């Protein structure tokens, strides 16, 4: 059944927003603007997912992607906020532009093929296609292992992220304080040898970090 005019218009709007948002994102100098436009792109994408009967995924896209991941980006942008003078990286520009050209060539080939190759008739989908219960059922039955694995991966990512971006200032400060304490105790033992035995006990306990 060929799609109706309405469907065409909806698709055109959504697709335009997606692509336009994407291009907008990639061409911004200001990272905050880029993030915002990316959020917009994701919203449009969510709508596109919905039009593909992937309702659950659409909501998840908004919640997780536009909600959580983009907020993460905003945090980092705020930490590192720098304007840059020239947006395009200059090192080996020719080579990378050649890569982009290759990509465009691939798209053209694809366009030529897809018109001929892809079938056009769609199956009739059940009512519950793409709903929460249906996808949840799938996740907890057939995709249980990947599900658990991905949660493990998220744990690893959390720990990794914390470890990598940890500030070392406190550590350095703690080490310096320990050094200072050791020197003070040495000097104290020099001046008051009578207290050496006592000092040895505490020294042995507090000296290791």
């Amino acid at each position, binding site marked *: 059944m060929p799609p109706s005019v309405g469907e065409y218009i909806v698709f055109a709007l959504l697709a335009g927003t997606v692509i336009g948002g994407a291009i907008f994102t990639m061409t911004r100098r200001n990272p905050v603007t880029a993030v915002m436009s990316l959020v917009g792109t994701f919203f449009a994408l969510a709508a596109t997912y919905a039009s593909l009967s992937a309702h659950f995924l659409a909501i998840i896209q908004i919640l997780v992607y536009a909600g959580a991941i983009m907020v993460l980006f905003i945090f980092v942008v705020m930490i590192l906020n720098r304007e840059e003078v020239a947006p395009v990286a200059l090192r080996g520009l020719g080579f990378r532009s*050649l890569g982009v050209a290759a990509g465009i060539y691939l798209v053209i080939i694809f366009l030529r*093929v897809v018109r001929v190759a892809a079938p056009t008739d769609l199956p009739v989908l059940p009512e519950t296609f793409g709903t929460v219960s249906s996808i949840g059922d799938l996740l907890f039955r057939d995709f249980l292992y990947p599900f658990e694995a991905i949660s493990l991966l998220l744990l690893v990512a959390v720990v990794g992220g914390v470890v990598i971006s940890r500030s070392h200032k406190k550590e350095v400060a703690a080490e310096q304080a320990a050094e200072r304490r050791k020197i003070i105790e040495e000097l104290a033992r020099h001046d008051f040898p009578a207290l050496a035995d006592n000092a040895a006990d505490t020294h042995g306990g507090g000296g290791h970090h």
Partner: protein
Amino acid sequence: MPFNLRLIPLLPFIGATLLMLFGRRWKRETVVLVACGAVLAAAFVAFDAFFTRLPEAAEVGGLTDNVWSWLSVGSGPTALNVDLSFRMDALSGLLCLIITFIGFLIHVYASGYMEHEPDYARFFAYLNLFCGAMLVLVLGDSLPVMFVGWEGVGLCSYLLIGFWYTDNANASAGKKAFITNRIGDFGFLLGMFLLFQYSGTMNFREITSVAQSGSALMQPFWLGQPVAFWVCVLLFIGATGKSAQLPLYVWLPDAMAGPTPVSALIHAATMVTAGVYMVARLHAVYLLSPAAMAIVAIVGALTAAFAAIIGFAQNDFKKVLAYSTVSQLGFMFAGVGTGNFDAGVFHLFTHAFFKAGLFLCAGSVMHAMSGSGDITKMGGLRKLIPWTHGVFFVCWLAICGLPFFSGFFSKDAIIAGAFATTIYKDAGLQWVGTFVGVLLVLAALGTAFYMSRLYFLVFSGSSRADEETKHHIHESPGVMVGPLVLLAVGAALGGFIGIPGAVIDHPELNLLGHFFEPVLGAEMVIPHMTEIIFTVLSVALAGTGVWLAYVFYGGGYREPAHQVAFRFPRFVALVRDKFRVDELYDAIFIRPLRKLSEWLFWLADRILIDKILVEGVGAVVDVFGRIARFVQLGDAQRYMAAFAIGVAALVFFATRPPAPGELKINVEGLSVQVDARRPGRQSPRELEYSFDFDDGREENQTAPEIRHAYRQPGKYTIKVTVTDPKWGTSTQVKRRVEVQ
């Protein structure tokens, strides 16, 4: 007849090995015992063989000893079979006796002379090695075995001349000897090869029989001369090197840098005579070519005269003797060159005694003069070192050729033989005999003169040495004097084995002539008158020479000597400088060669190896490294770009429609059949073909074959475009075709 001949060279070799391995740890006495003992033992065996066994075996080719089958190459007429085998016949037997006996005497002498030498054991090891090699040379039954000995004595000569190698001059002298020898050896090798090629054998007896029968060696070879001529000349070149004749004699005077016993043994008595021995051995071949013998004789005579002149003005004791050796060797070659083989070998025999004696006297004198050999500072030694003087006196008379001393008989035989020889008649070279004879006469006069000069300047008159040296003049110890005396006895009496009895109608008195008959053939027949004339002439010349020397130098430098030096200073200097032959060789050969090697070094080493091969390889690796570096960028963005490019390229090549490299076109008259299929595996893809026939007409279809008829003959370019509609890619193929 078989006999254990191998012991004769083997014993000295064993001695040499033991001394080289253990000598350094032994006491002096042990070293002397081993060294002299080895040679003495060899002498015993040689004497035993010579006197008890040889007489019976003489007629059947002497004593033989086949040690080992050495080379056996090929089969049939071109086969080469060389065995390590020895043969003692009259000729080699006599030389064995000379080598072992005089070798032993010199070993004994050296034990005293080299007493203060730290490298005692090494010296005697080399001496023994030399004796062994010389014996191999002489006893060898074939040319290769002789060549082994030939090279061996050359090596030992080098080792012994350069014995005190820490002094550069000595090392250079050793080098000069070896290299000059080597140049001669090149000729020797060529002669050997040529002889083998035309006679098919290297064995002496077989060579002799080939030469004496048949014409194998008389075939023309080069420049119209037969093979025999070239063989003889080439072998003689080797002899000029080893036996110090013109032009390769230059090493012998320099070789005096070695210890005196070395000069006595090697450069007087034995090694230098190897050339003469070689010619005598191959006399059958030489007799085939009078022209070659003429060359031998002329070179020998010229050398004799030339060296004698140089001897007039030398101021070093040993140098005088060195040039004397060169001159006497010239006599020997003149002897064998004129066909008088007996006389040449006879002179070899007598020369060994008196020349060795003279050299050992030189050692004794230098010992007395605290190591100096400068005769300008000697004089009056007659009373101070009587024994040495006595020996020198006897040997001096022998070499001058005074009657009844050994030199008298041998030299006379040669001179008379030169004038009386008949071997040149057939070749129309009769003048050679006379020419050689005249030269020899002059050389004999010269010999008498310079030897007498030496005698008078060293032993007569009063001493010209300084106080310090005069104090130390003393006679040599007994161990040195003993051999001296024995040699003098030989020099005095040795001549009596070769009395030319034919003159007085008692030919049997000539022991030597008879003795050599089986080996060297019948002795030369010299008319009585010639013999007598030249005997008288020689004596007269000897006397003249002695008298002239007395006039110039009797009792020291006399007025005539001063006059000559005053009036002809440049000529005297030239003679003293040995006619600057060494300088000439240096300019002609050595300097250009050195320049050439420097240039080659620069070319091959500096440029080819260093620059191109070593640095070049490095540079190539460097360049490749620089290029390859661009793959490792560390830039993830460029990596991803490369990824994308790679994928695009992959897709491009995978989606191209298959097309042949060349169109298959069948021309039949005006129509063509075109086949645009790719050869090999056909793909299942649906392709479109577009044919452009270059006459304004085109066809599009999905089949790869088409037939087309042209309207007019001519040359057309057919273009086929293959398209894959699915991917939208296409390929084009063209081909020119001619239609008639």
